[in-house]
């Protein structure tokens, strides 16, 4: 086939859903107007562990408008069949099935009322009594599970003989995703069929959870989620409140609308777990690493074991013969964590990249030079060649653009009035994953196309990038293509996570549109009434809805002419992408080098980020404008992780004490300087047929250590615990 002209892909287009979003017309889960809807509000446990001894609902039920108070005392027994998609050891929290309290804030009741005000007030009137036990929520000193282990070489021996040895422990606090849209669900039963409008990053996942909890066929559950107000991982499972909404709707016979409050977001959805990450490293005097050990501890709940890919960077980011790792989960009386942007990798890279900076300082080598000396030739964890690894280029471009070599290498050497100025850098890595996906494609006789897949757009711009891919593959203008997503009735898509969406769904869209274009071309060249009759199909391209022979644009016709003449109302195809089976032939990763300049008030310890640059090896970029926005957003997320974000638990009763946006600090506009992102040219067909490696996760990896390293350079103080607050620096 002749390659299609690329006019949409790679063009700096604005979002196709932009107008909806700036006019308030984009419908998020709770915005859907469902006739007859009533409201539910959850009552949270006020103890951190124990059992419920009584629930007094009289005052709540006496309120005007209150229809029902649901709890384990009156809820039906639910099937809670195993969820085949769960992917986590243990058993999920069962809603209202018994009197046990596993963590502070666990849902213990829900009030359903005809108005939101009545439901809120009613929830405050439900009196729950408990038999409380002392919860254990502090990871320090708590026993861990049997660890996951990895080893190559002999680290003990290598460390014993290393000319340079260092040992450090880094600590990362719990972080909450806190997307701006609180999680919310509207549930409606039509007989035995359930429809939910939900905030989710995976309609299929929520559908499966509801089906298994209620013991229904998945086909009887429809999940709709056209717009998602941020997620960062929080939408990757069907949470208890989704079950509660469905339960309340079934019980009352009315559609039910349920939103978590901002406070409930802290215990009603997951979080990036607390970590302790111990590093021991050995190197020669020129900074060549010989060994590194990684002793990792992370919190999880008692009822599920949450694991993420925290061990990967330590195995493959740098070259060294000896590595040993232990990754231990520590079960506590908390709810189960969940993936948060750059999961595992951002955590590991904070520790590893801080350690590299410490080594660079100790051996007196420039941090970039140190990394270049330890750059591997192949993936030493698997022995596989890298598909593409442009980390050297990330360093070179970043150093040049940032002005890295102008820095005075000594710490605490640069001042600007009261401010100590420092620069730091860090590398980052994230796997370039992809999953099976499908997309339907329909071309109508009027020359417009509809492409659909059950994927999600929580902000990266799925609507736009998929439309770009489809427009070029079909040879249509952007405005002639509509891409729809967020409905479990649509063809299968994987979780909107892991930076998989563009690689996976995009490849399925490409496949479906290529097939449809070929179908149209075949129809034309075999149609004796077509100007293209008899032409070699491999020479025909389509542009702006017109099929023509490449190099002879006058010989051709439009889709519309072709379909109308053939009495066809439409052409339809199904596109698919199947992840290659069998062992990978290459090591597939995205990379970044992040550079930061900070100012630290010498007397007050206040840290301000003055500028930041991220350089990315993320393969082919479909939507440059949107990719740029994602990178800047990842930097903002990383600034929060480095300097502000910290979920604080009162270990006396397991209560989260800063469960609101006034006390769980996230970056605001005044915290953010000008930021810059550079994507290296790339196209990695080992990852997928469209050459993208994914960028949604990598953009947050490496940001926190770059800032931590800059703080060290500014102050000479190494803070090994996030967030780096003024208190830590005083």
């Amino acid at each position, binding site marked *: 086939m002749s390659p299609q002209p690329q006019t949409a892909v790679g063009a700096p287009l*604005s979002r196709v*859903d*932009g107008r*909806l979003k*700036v*006019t*308030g017309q*984009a*419908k*998020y889960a*709770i*915005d859907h*107007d469902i006739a007859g809807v009533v409201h539910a*509000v959850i009552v949270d446990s006020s103890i951190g562990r124990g059992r419920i001894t009584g629930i007094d609902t009289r005052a709540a039920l006496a*309120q*005007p*408008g209150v*229809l029902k108070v649901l709890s384990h005392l009156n809820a039906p027994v639910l099937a809670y069949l195993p969820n085949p998609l769960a992917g986590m050891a243990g058993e999920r929290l069962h809603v209202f099935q018994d009197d046990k309290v596993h963590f502070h804030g666990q849902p213990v009741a829900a009030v359903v009322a*005809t*108005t*939101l*005000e*009545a439901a*809120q*007030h009613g929830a*405050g009137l439900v009196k729950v009594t408990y038999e409380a036990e002392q919860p254990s929520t502090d990871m320090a000193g708590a026993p861990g599970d049997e660890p996951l282990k990895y080893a190559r070489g002999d680290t003990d021996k290598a460390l014993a003989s290393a000319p340079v040895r260092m040992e450090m422990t880094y600590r990362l606090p719990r972080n909450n995703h*806190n*997307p*701006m*849209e*609180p999680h919310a669900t509207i549930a409606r039963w039509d007989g035995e069929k359930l429809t939910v409008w939900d905030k989710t990053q995976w309609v299929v996942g929520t559908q499966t959870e509801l089906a298994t909890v209620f013991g229904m066929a998945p086909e009887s559950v429809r999940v709709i989620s056209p*717009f*998602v*107000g*941020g*997620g*960062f991982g929080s939408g990757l499972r069907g949470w208890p409140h989704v079950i509660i909404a469905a339960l309340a709707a079934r019980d009352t016979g009315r559609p039910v609308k349920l*939103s978590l*409050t*901002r*406070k409930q977001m802290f215990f009603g959805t997951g979080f990036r777990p607390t970590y302790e990450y111990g590093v021991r490293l050995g190197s020669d005097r020129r900074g060549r690493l010989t060994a590194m050990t990684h002793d990792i501890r992370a919190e999880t709940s008692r009822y599920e074991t949450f694991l993420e890919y925290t061990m990967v960077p330590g195995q493959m980011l740098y070259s060294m013969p000896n590595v040993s790792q232990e990754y231990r989960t520590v079960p506590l009386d908390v709810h189960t964590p969940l993936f948060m942007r750059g999961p595992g990798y951002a955590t590991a890279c904070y520790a590893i990249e801080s350690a590299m900076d410490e080594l660079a300082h100790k051996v007196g080598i420039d941090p970039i030079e140190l990394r270049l000396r330890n750059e591997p030739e192949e993936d030493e964890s698997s022995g596989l060649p890298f598909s593409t690894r442009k980390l050297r280029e990330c360093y070179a471009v970043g150093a040049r653009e940032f002005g890295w070599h102008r820095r005075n290498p000594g710490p605490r050497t640069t001042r600007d009035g009261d401010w100590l100025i420092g620069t730091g850098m860090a590398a980052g890595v994230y796997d370039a994953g992809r999953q099976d996906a499908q997309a339907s494609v329909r071309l109508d006789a009027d020359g417009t196309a509809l492409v659909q897949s059950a994927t999600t757009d929580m902000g990266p711009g799925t609507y736009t990038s998929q439309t770009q891919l489809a427009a070029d593959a079909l040879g249509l203008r952007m405005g002639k293509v509509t891409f729809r997503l967020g409905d479990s009735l649509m063809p299968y898509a994987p979780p909107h996570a892991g930076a998989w969406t563009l690689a996976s769904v995009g490849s399925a869209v490409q496949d479906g549109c290529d097939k449809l274009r070929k179908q149209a071309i075949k129809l034309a060249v075999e149609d004796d009434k077509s100007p293209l009759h008899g032409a070699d199909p491999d020479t025909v391209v389509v542009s702006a809805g017109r099929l023509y022979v490449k190099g002879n644009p006058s010989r051709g016709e439009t889709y519309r002419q072709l379909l109308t003449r053939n009495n066809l109302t439409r052409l339809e195809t199904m596109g698919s992408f199947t992840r290659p089976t069998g062992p990978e032939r290459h090591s597939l990763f995205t990379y970044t080098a992040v550079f930061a300049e900070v100012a630290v008030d010498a007397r007050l310890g206040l840290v301000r980020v003055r500028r930041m640059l991220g350089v990315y090896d993320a393969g082919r970029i479909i939507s440059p*404008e*949107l990719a*740029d*926005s*994602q990178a*800047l*957003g990842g930097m*903002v*997320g990383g600034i929060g992780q480095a300097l502000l974000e910290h979920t604080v638990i009162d270990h006396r009763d397991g209560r989260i004490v800063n469960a*609101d*946006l*006034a006390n769980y600090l*996230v*970056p*605001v*506009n*005044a915290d*953010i300087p*000008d930021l810059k992102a550079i994507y290296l040219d790339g196209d990695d067909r080992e990852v997928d047929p469209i050459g993208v490696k994914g960028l949604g996760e990598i953009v947050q990896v490496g940001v926190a250590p770059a800032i931590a390293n800059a703080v060290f350079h500014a102050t000479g103080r190494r803070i090994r615990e996030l967030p780096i607050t003024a208190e830590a620096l005083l």
Partner: protein
Amino acid sequence: MSTELPESYGSPPDGAASAPSRRTFIATTTAVGSTVMAGGLVAGASLSGAAEASAAEAPPSGRVSLTVNGKRHATVIDNRTSLLDLLREHFGLPGTKKGCNAGACGACTVLVDGRRVNSCLTLAVRLDGAEVTTIEGLADGDELHPLQRAFVDLDAFQCGFCTPGQIMSGVGCIEEGHTGSHEEIREWMSGNICRCGCYVKIVRAVEQTARGK
């Protein structure tokens, strides 16, 4: 960013039939932690805002008439109703978002008589005679407001959830003249959190729009 309203909004509505005590009122409005302005305590009519109230006694309600996006509304509402919930649940205007319901995120920002306020912190019954502009009322027909246009052109959003609040706040910021420098815009736009992290482009959009005025 100010959430204080001029005193004139405190005037009680007509028809005070069964006035709740101040104590009862505060208890009902703060019981579940939804923060509301305590300054607007008013006597309520004994009418239910809900179409159906199942129990015997109806909640304390009040009459309010206000203009939203040029359209006049006269209604009787549960006194506990915030302006945000009035817009979303009663007037069919879900463009204004509830991000925290506590005045910390700015997603619910609307203009009340030209001033930006957090609608989650504003009791609707206080707004008798007020003129409210929401994101749905900003464009002139199909013609986007210049700031809406700038948000699209400069990609000043990702998920879009905070965007209505950012834009309404930006309109207020421009009107107030707090756009002299990037630093000033950042400071005066810091009441609106964007978790996707679009601040750099939000500042550009506000600045470009202010310059074009």
